[in-house]
């Protein structure tokens, strides 16, 4: 009895003491999160991954050297983890001053939640900034006609890489049309070669096939309707037809066996191409550097070919439009102090993509910065032919479609990736109509 009474009393005391101690603990958390700079300067978060990480750091360093308003403090995060990390940080009021993104749905979310600054007047005051960069790069940073994110870095279109050695082995030409592509499948299969490499487990890789097919078959407007989350955009008959074409390709054995177990993280899809196991690969311009670095003499030996995605005969879309990342983006946190915002604006106007940094992107990263009038510089670079190809795509494309997973809301993007995996993984049991029904249900929420 005695024991029980004692323990109850001490329990009550503990229960009283706990919340007090808890608040003391919470106070320890304080305001020194990773988003805060030590000396009142501004903060910037971007992505890790060489060689671009070096160029990003170089850009911040040279800005800090000349900046009078204050310095930027850098924190870099791994690509896949960043998207979740930044959202949590913004939600917790710990956002950095300058927020890296790919534009589209996430910028819209942040803008609607009042977490990022409206930069329209800032851009209007600096017309030379706007004129200097690709015009097509600006729209993914806009929400309802207002600019919430400023583009920077490089343009990254998606196109068809191919292995020239394997094409000459079977005596075939790269596919100009979808019918050509379908005809190539049995030819490569007969030679014991996988026609197309695909890292299906990563899902966004598969998504790029659907994006191109929708643009080529259903046209630019249908693509935009999807990106704008218009009602019933997914059940457009032409979109459904595009999905059936994709399933036809799966059924014909177009993709490497077991493609749903191939992972893009370790560049296994690129390895299939340069080890002569697969003939074609639909990927972004960002892959060129690693194919060149990992493929031995594959690139230097002239075996890497590249061309735009084939045209679909009778489709509503043109053959020059492309999809991918029109640029990368920076937004300014509305929670930052006025001083921090000033530093951030200075950096966007005068530091983020100077001529020096643009040159570094060309020479060190092998990518095309979103700066007008650099074609001569690109042609003279080490991989001039490839860089000019990218520049031509970016400057000639009537339409540069943003990736669906960036353009859509996070809720819809997650549903989309799950459905894509089923569409390709289970072509007999999962119909385009089911896909459309699932997606329409999400976008109406």
């Amino acid at each position, binding site marked *: 009895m005695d*024991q029980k009474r*004692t*323990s109850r009393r*001490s*329990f009550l005391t*503990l229960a009283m*003491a*706990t*919340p007090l*101690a*808890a608040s003391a*603990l919470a106070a320890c958390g304080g305001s020194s999160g990773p988003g805060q700079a030590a000396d009142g300067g501004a903060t910037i978060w971007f992505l890790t991954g060489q060689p671009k990480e070096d160029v990003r750091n170089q850009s911040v360093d040279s800005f800090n050297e000349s900046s009078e308003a204050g310095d930027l403090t850098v924190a870099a995060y791994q690509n896949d983890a960043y998207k*979740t990390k930044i*959202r*949590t940080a*913004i*939600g917790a009021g710990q956002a950095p001053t300058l927020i890296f993104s790919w534009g589209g749905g996430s910028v819209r*979310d*942040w803008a*609607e*939640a009042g*977490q990022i600054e409206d930069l329209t007047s800032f851009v209007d005051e600096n017309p030379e900034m706007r004129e200097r960069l690709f015009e097509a790069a600006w729209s993914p940073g806009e929400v309802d006609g207002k600019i919430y994110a400023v583009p920077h870095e490089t343009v990254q279109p998606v196109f068809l890489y191919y292995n020239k050695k394997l094409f000459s082995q079977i005596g075939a030409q790269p596919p100009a049309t979808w019918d050509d592509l379908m005809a190539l499948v049995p030819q490569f299969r007969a030679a014991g070669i996988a026609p197309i490499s695909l890292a*299906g*487990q990563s*899902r966004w890789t598969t998504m790029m096939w659907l994006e191109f097919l929708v643009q080529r078959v259903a046209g630019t407007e249908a693509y935009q309707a999807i990106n704008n989350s218009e009602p019933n955009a997914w059940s457009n008959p032409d979109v459904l037809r595009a999905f059936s074409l994709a399933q036809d390709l799966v059924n014909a054995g177009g993709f*490497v*066996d*077991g*493609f*749903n*177990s*191939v*992972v893009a*993280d*370790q560049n*296994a899809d690129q*390895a*299939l191409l340069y080890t002569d*196991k697969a003939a074609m690969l639909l990927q972004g311009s960002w892959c060129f550097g690693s194919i060149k670095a990992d493929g031995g003499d594959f690139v230097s030996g002239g075996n890497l070919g590249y061309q735009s995605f084939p045209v679909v005969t009778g489709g509503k879309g043109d053959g020059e439009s492309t999809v991918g990342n029109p640029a990368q983006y920076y937004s300014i946190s509305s929670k930052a102090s006025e001083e921090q915002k000033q530093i951030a604006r200075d950096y966007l106007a005068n530091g983020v993509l100077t001529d020096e940094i643009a040159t570094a992107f060309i020479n060190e990263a092998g990518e095309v910065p979103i700066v007008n009038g650099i074609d001569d510089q690109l042609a003279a670079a080490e991989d001039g032919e490839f860089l000019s190809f990218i520049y031509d795509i970016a400057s000639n494309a009537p339409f540069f479609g943003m990736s669906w997973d960036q353009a859509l*809301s*996070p*809720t819809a*993007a*997650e*549903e989309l990736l*799950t459905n894509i*995996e*089923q569409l390709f*993984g*289970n072509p007999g049991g*999962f119909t385009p109509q089911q896909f459309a029904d699932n997606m329409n249900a999400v976008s109406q929420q």
Partner: protein
Amino acid sequence: MSSVAVSAAGAAGSGGRGTSHGRLAWLVLPALLFFTVFGIVPLVGVFALSFTSWDGIGSVTFSGFDSWTSVLRDPGLPHALLVTFLIMALSWLVQTPISLLIGVFIAGNQRYRAFLAVLYFIPLLLSSAAIAIVYKALLDPNFGIGAGLGLDFLNQNWLGRPWLALGVVVFVVSWQFVPFHSLIYQGGVRQIPVSMYEAAQLDGAGRVKQFFHITVPQLKYTIITSSTLMVVGSLTFFDLIFVLTQGGPGDATRSLALDMYLRGFRASLMGPASAIAVILVVVGLVLALLLQRLGGKDANTSQLEGA
């Protein structure tokens, strides 16, 4: 979270027996403090959040039972429950016999057995993420272990077919946790009095009979402990599946814990994700209680009767 609750309940159960109580009760303060801050407070927060709608960055708005109705009506919930219970049952079925046998084996005092015990223990030292990344590379149909060893039957679409992917998850989970449970069984076996085996030998019982009539019954509580850890552990199993399959292909390996994360942090639906978290806690508590019941009401009866 439920595993925290279970271990805390266990700690409280054994704490009440101290002789010089009074002052010693204060010793519980640090544990209670941490449990309150990191266990109870988030739990209450999650329960509250499940009645709101929140996208993680905007404002939190009260939405009544909206999250609950959307979660309970979603066919994804029964599917996630099914996947969770399948992983739970299959990994229990695979792990228990293997770890029981290994545990009995390494309980012997022979030198080579001690050496093998160290080898068996290695998977436990690796992080789940590292294990998942390595298995992903090993299972690559073109550059994985099948291609490396020239064994064609290992070149399967391991992560691309729903049932295969589920099997892979169970296999990798078991590979990681069998050492841990073997260790528990090893300890259990070593506590069985040698006199029982001696008596059995005198009565003419062979090795197999000794195993089934002495070892297994004597390990009753060890089996319950190990099973509780497996069952409750597989309920909150997340990191390995997340890295290995992301719940795919489609939703074939999308367990309840993964479903919660993907809804909350990928799809930014914090309300429904919180509702799933509450379901997860309830299921975990019910299971832990059931398993305790399975062990008989009076857990203090001697296992050594007749020894």
